[in-house]
């Protein structure tokens, strides 16, 4: 039974006990505990179930590498699945629940998979579940899906109760890892005056050294650590962050730090997580090393733990994993665990050492205190069902056929040696080299990840760099960080050579191999990897994907190296030839919430508002997103439907006067001696001959000849033009013009200034428009002659500086008035007031669309879709024949563009007056070579016209303009056909009398 020791525990405060629950059961721990320490302290070894076979799982590690002990944490809006107990700090009221079992953790029906495991080897689903065909979707897959997954999904309607944020930082040196190597490097860099950030993923600094009882500069490591920390905290050029994991290393020295600001204080009014986005000069990874498990049969049973983790629990939290512990190892370091256990009063039944002899200082110390050391031995198999009860031993150098001895025990501390944490080095392309003596990959200093200047920007120090001896660790860190003076001094503890052990016993039979877990979360065993090799999934990447080795939430931090050693052995090649799989961010999983950061709710995305936005909102407007803008679609009154509101708005405008917020229209000022030349290149029309004071409608095409934007151009002066663009087009067209000016015609003298937001633009539209403006009071002559159609003037209206354009997109008498944005609302109010006697009312984009369609005006985005050229829309009149060049001219000369078979714009009227479906096609009899119905046209926009009292539409139709009056069938709703007639697209006031009054 795991239990709390009566003394010790360097990280816990025994005076403060904290209550928590696990699966509803009340337990208690101490301030400073991790959840796993508290659970083990409370005797709770069983923590969850594995992914595939639903095998019982207990904690194996003490930190980020933990594959097993995952729980659902919290409830409701603060529930989080798959939380690692080893990295969860205990707090009062914590609620944890175990995962992946039904009905209970102790008794799980899914564990039947474990019994069937021989039928479920790696890749079994590729080979079976093929027939009958429909069964995959309806039977097999649902079963697979249900039994897979790990944690329970949060409830469908759950909203996260917490907030998140980002932070940008810059530094010369970022140190990842606050162990003794990291602290040494940080101090060296800080003393040299560099801007330094230190990130340590846990709540404590010092890493392994204090646990191992190292002595640095003559003092216990923890004291030394406190001293260095105090110095760093005192320096202005240093930022020290605990609970902050370096999550990812990205190109050009972009480092992500995941700060868990308030995970240990849920409910505190703080951001829960903060994402640090740091641009570094240099990243020093001092992330230490991770101990490797050993592969022996039954190594997945709860109670089997890493030796270093056992030591951590004993020393840091005064928790023993059991009463009788067996240590199994291939190296000297694990003897530290045996000694620590012994010192804490826990029985160490034996140290099983695979080496033929264990001669180092540490084994000697162990023997000296009476611990039995069994040399050349191996664990043949662990006995027990839901946790360890005994181990059967055999000779390491055997096939495990003969059991040498059985030892009773309730926990096993295993050590297969260490692997440097090379993730951060590797994220951005750093390469590894194989260290034969210590049997691990470590960073190859000759092939670091490269920064923007092509130079390496990452250095690894300490155990992360393959240094395992404390003296080496400190001097490596000191030197790499270019420390001056002496490196911190430590007392060396010589260690004898380790023996690489990838499987025990060495020639284990299939029966044993099929029970040796490599990846305990995903249930990948030695036999699975060997099967992958046998079947030709020989690339390590194939093996990974075929077996799912290393694809679990721990990303194989414990399993990968053993797995690829097994694979190499199966393929008869050396480990470096097999290589590793790709290391990818994040180092351990980070919340999606923190990635989104503050961008939630109102600041999810910028929402662009016109000066009259609040007024529209107050009217109960129905909004339409247009780019990041919101434009009024219509203004329903009371219970009115949107369709009815649109009809009312149109009728009001056509019969009296309406008001449109057109502020979102782009307004680009083009000015300079070459302004005329420039607008002639930008527009298909001739623009340079426009007279000052006049307006002209123009088309812009891209270099492919496709129509990309349109709008009215006003000549403001000899050398300046004001170009209106569509609402969605303003920024795009602005950038496009700058592009040509800066990159092609850089000797042309023209400026373009985006004035879109300077002005509120308000269209006063309808037969009574002039009366309204006159009533508002103006110093301009707004009469038919004073301001003729397609002219503009500057002056004042309602005592507000205004530029008035007499242009019309509705076919009515219409004035578009631009006023300073700060006075947009004032103008709007004044217009409403002056128009009250005419029943003036605002209209939205839908009324605008209908009215323009009644007039046969095209709309960018409706009649055009990026594949339409002006000629398709019969806009040849707007394409200058006089100009040698304009953007898009060459594109329009291509074979397909001049083809007589292009579909062209026509008006469409249904025979029965109904509204035809937008987007529907006109089918022809017969099919093409691919069996698709042939077609001859499509509806580009379609509306109910209240003005005409029937449906009207525009369409692109093959040879359309030559087929006036012809009847043609379109697709209707639900597979029906609807008959329509090809007509002129101008449905209303063809002579243009209304706009010209």
């Amino acid at each position, binding site marked *: 039974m795991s239990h709390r020791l009566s003394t010790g525990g360097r990280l816990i405060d025994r005076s403060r006990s904290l209550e928590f629950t696990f699966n509803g059961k009340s337990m208690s721990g101490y301030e400073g505990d991790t959840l796993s320490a508290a659970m083990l302290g409370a005797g709770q070894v069983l923590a969850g179930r594995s992914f595939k076979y639903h095998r019982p799982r207990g904690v194996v590690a003490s930190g980020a590498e933990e594959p097993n002990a995952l729980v659902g944490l919290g409830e409701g809006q603060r529930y989080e699945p798959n939380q690692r107990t080893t990295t969860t700090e205990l707090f009062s009221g914590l609620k944890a629940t175990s995962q992946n079992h039904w009905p209970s953790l102790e008794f799980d029906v899914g564990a039947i998979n474990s019994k069937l495991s021989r*039928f479920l*080897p790696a890749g*079994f689903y*590729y*080979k*079976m579940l*093929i027939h009958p065909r429909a069964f*995959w*979707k309806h039977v097999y*897959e649902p079963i697979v*899906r*249900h039994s*897979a*997954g*790990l*944690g329970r*999904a*949060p409830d*469908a*309607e759950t*909203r*996260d109760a917490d907030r998140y944020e980002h932070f940008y930082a810059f530094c010369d040196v970022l140190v990842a890892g606050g162990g003794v190597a990291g602290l040494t490097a940080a101090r060296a860099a800080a003393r040299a005056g560099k801007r330094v950030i230190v990130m340590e993923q846990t709540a404590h600094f010092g890493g392994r050294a204090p646990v191992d009882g190292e002595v640095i500069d003559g003092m216990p490591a923890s004291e030394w650590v406190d001293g260095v920390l105090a110095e760093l905290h005192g320096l202005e050029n240093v930022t020290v962050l605990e609970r902050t994991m370096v999550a990812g290393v*990205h*190109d050009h020295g972009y480092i992500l730090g995941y700060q868990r600001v308030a995970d240990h204080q849920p409910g505190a009014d703080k951001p829960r997580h903060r994402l640090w986005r740091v641009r570094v000069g240099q990243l020093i990874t001092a992330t230490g090393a991770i101990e490797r498990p050993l592969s022996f049969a039954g190594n997945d049973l709860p109670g089997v733990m890493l030796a270093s983790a056992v030591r951590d629990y004993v020393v840091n939290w005064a928790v023993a994993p059991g009463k009788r512990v067996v240590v199994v190892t291939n190296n000297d370091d694990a003897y530290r665990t045996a000694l620590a256990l012994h010192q804490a009063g826990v029985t160490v039944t034996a140290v099983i050492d695979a080496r033929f002899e264990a001669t180092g200082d540490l084994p000697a110390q162990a023997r000296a205190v009476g611990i039995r050391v069994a040399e050349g031995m191996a664990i043949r198999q662990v006995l027990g069902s839901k946790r360890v009860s005994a181990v059967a031993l055999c000779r390491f150098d055997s096939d495990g056929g003969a059991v040498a001895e059985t030892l009773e025990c309730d926990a096993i501390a295993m050590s297969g040696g260490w692997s440097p944490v090379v993730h951060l080095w590797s994220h951005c392309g750093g390469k590894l080299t194989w260290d034969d003596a210590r049997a691990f990959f470590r960073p190859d200093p000759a092939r670091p990840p490269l920064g923007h200047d092509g130079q390496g920007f990452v250095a690894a120090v300490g155990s992360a760099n393959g240094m395992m001896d404390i003296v080496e660790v400190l001097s490596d860190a000191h030197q790499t960080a270019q420390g001056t003076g002496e490196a911190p001094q430590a007392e060396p503890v010589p260690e004898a050579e380790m023996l690489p052990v990838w499987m025990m016993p060495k020639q284990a039979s299939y029966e044993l191999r099929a029970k040796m877990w490599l990846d305990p979360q995903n249930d990948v065993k030695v*036999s699975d990897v060997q*099967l992958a090799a046998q*079947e030709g999934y020989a690339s390590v*990447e194939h093996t990974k994907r075929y077996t*799912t080795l290393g694809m679990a*939430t721990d*990303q194989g931090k414990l399993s990968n190296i053993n797995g690829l050693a097994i694979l190499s052995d199966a393929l008869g090649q050396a480990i470096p030839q097999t290589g590793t799989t*790709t290391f*990818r961010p*994040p180092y351990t*999983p980070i*919340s*999606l*919430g923190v*990635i*989104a*950061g503050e961008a*939630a709710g109102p600041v*999810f*995305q910028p929402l662009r508002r016109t000066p009259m936005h609040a007024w529209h909102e107050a009217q109960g407007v129905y909004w339409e*997103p247009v780019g990041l803008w919101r434009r009024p679609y219509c203004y329903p009154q009371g219970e009115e439907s949107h369709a009815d509101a649109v009809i009312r708005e149109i009728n009001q405008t056509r019969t009296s006067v309406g008001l449109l917020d057109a502020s979102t229209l782009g307004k680009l000022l083009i000015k300079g001696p070459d302004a005329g030349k420039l607008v002639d290149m930008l527009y298909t029309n001739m623009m340079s001959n426009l007279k000052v004071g006049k307006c002209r409608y123009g088309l812009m095409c891209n270099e*492919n*000849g496709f129509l990309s934007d349109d709008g009215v151009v006003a000549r403001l002066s000899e050398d300046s033009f004001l170009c209106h663009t569509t609402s969605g087009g303003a920024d795009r067209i602005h950038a496009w013009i700058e592009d040509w000016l800066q990159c092609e015609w850089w000797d042309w003298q023209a400026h373009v200034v985006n004035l879109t937001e300077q002005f509120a633009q308000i269209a006063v539209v309808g037969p009574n428009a002039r009366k309204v403006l006159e009533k508002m009071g103006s110093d301009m002559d707004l009469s038919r002659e004073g301001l003729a159609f397609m002219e503009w003037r500057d002056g004042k209206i309602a005592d507000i500086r205004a530029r008035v354009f007499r242009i019309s997109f509705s076919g009515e008498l219409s004035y578009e008035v631009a006023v300073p944005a700060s006075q947009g609302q004032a103008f709007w109010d004044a217009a409403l007031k002056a128009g009250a006697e005419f029943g003036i009312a605002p209209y939205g984009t839908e009324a605008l669309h209908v009215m323009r369609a009644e007039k046969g005006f095209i709309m960018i985005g409706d009649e055009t*879709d*990026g*594949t339409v050229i002006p000629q398709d829309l019969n806009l040849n009149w707007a394409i200058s024949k006089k100009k040698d060049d304009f953007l898009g001219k060459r*594109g329009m000369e291509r*074979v*397909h*563009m001049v083809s007589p078979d292009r579909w062209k714009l026509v008006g469409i009227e249904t025979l029965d007056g109904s509204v035809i479906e937008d*987007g529907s096609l006109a089918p022809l009899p017969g099919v093409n*070579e*691919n069996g*698709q*119905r042939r077609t001859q046209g499509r509806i580009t926009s379609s509306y109910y016209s209240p003005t005409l009292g029937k449906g009207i539409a525009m369409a692109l139709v093959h040879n359309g303009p030559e087929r006036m009056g012809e009847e043609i069938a379109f*697709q209707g709703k639900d597979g029906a056909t609807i008959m329509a007639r090809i007509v002129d697209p101008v449905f209303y006031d063809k002579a243009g009398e209304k706009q010209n009054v």
Partner: protein
Amino acid sequence: MRRYSVFAIAREAMRQHNGWDRAWASPEPKSHYDVIIVGAGGHGLATAYYLGKNFGIKNVAIIEKGWLGGGNTGRNTTIIRSNYLQDPSAAIYEKARSLYETLSQDLNYNIMFSPRGVMMLAQTESEIRGYRRTEYANTLQGVETRFIGPNEVKRLVPIMNIHGPRYPVLGALWQPRAGTARHDAVAWGYARACSDMGMDVIQNCEVTGIESVGGQVSAVVTTKGTIGTKKLAMVVAGHSGHLANMAGFRLPVESVALQAMVSEPIKPAIDVVVMANTVHGYLSQSDKGEMVIGGGADHFNNYTQRGSWMHIEETTRALVETFPMLSRLKMLRQWGGIVDMTGDRSPIISKTPLGNTFINCGWGTGGFKSIPGSGWAMAELVAKGEPGPLAQAFSLDRFREGRFIDESVAAGVAH
């Protein structure tokens, strides 16, 4: 080749699984082939498979510089749908989708095609119009799709926040028999079938040069020596520009990184595939339980298989807004692939300026779904030397002629 079945599994279970053969052989290259296919991604392998199956051409080598399936085929978000707008696209993607329906049985390899349905959300009026237009086009193209309202969306995807507030869900284009498949298995299944037909799948062999005689291809130079061939098919996705340079021409293609990520696995929470194009993100849940998330592509040329972090942020932001419960899930892994983007964002299946040399590329961000159809059409092109109806519109000369196949026009994206 030993057939896979539940009985085979049962038999092997009784003898420690030692009877399983290699899924594919690992031969040394011969000196000459009738057809060499460069690139053992899904498209290259499918081309080989249909060359053998439909045209009896089996003296074929598929040459792969790394491990087969390790390109974009091994790193995509596995969305399969065919409700494209333009006729040529709808034709080839629907051909592919329909082949996917029976691919597990055809290959005797469970590729786990799961027609769970794909929905593309309409969150603006213009998206509604675009999807309605697609729906009408699909009806005539023989693609089964329909526009559904917000309530139906919510019924299918309870975890979705359809009320916005920023972009309320106005409806969705819904293709019920679209879905996902196990991406690696697609490559492995084809490779196994090709190997079984006697074709050579040659891995860890990079093509570094192309030789020709009199304007006709004669051989490829590789890291395993020069290998003669009568015909050459280049099917290398992001590396197409590079191969084209070797063959002496340029392509309307740029290679950029596209990223994806997975969350930690959870129990089933979403049964269908959702694409939200207004906010840029798409999501499905794999059989293992991870949320598989894809987002935007970088804008700069890149061959590193790593992309820029900002796209991960943008996508995550969008999806957390759309599916609030995601906020407390965690990102497990992110990665990138190098995709080949053409001038009109549609693929190229074409003859090239070099004789007997054919190219299949430009699938960009959306070519997993087309693998069987593309292989089918490419095999026909290679076998006959001329494109069949499926491939015709995708020829290289469309750019010169201005005959674009532009799918973005209906507010859709190309995934």
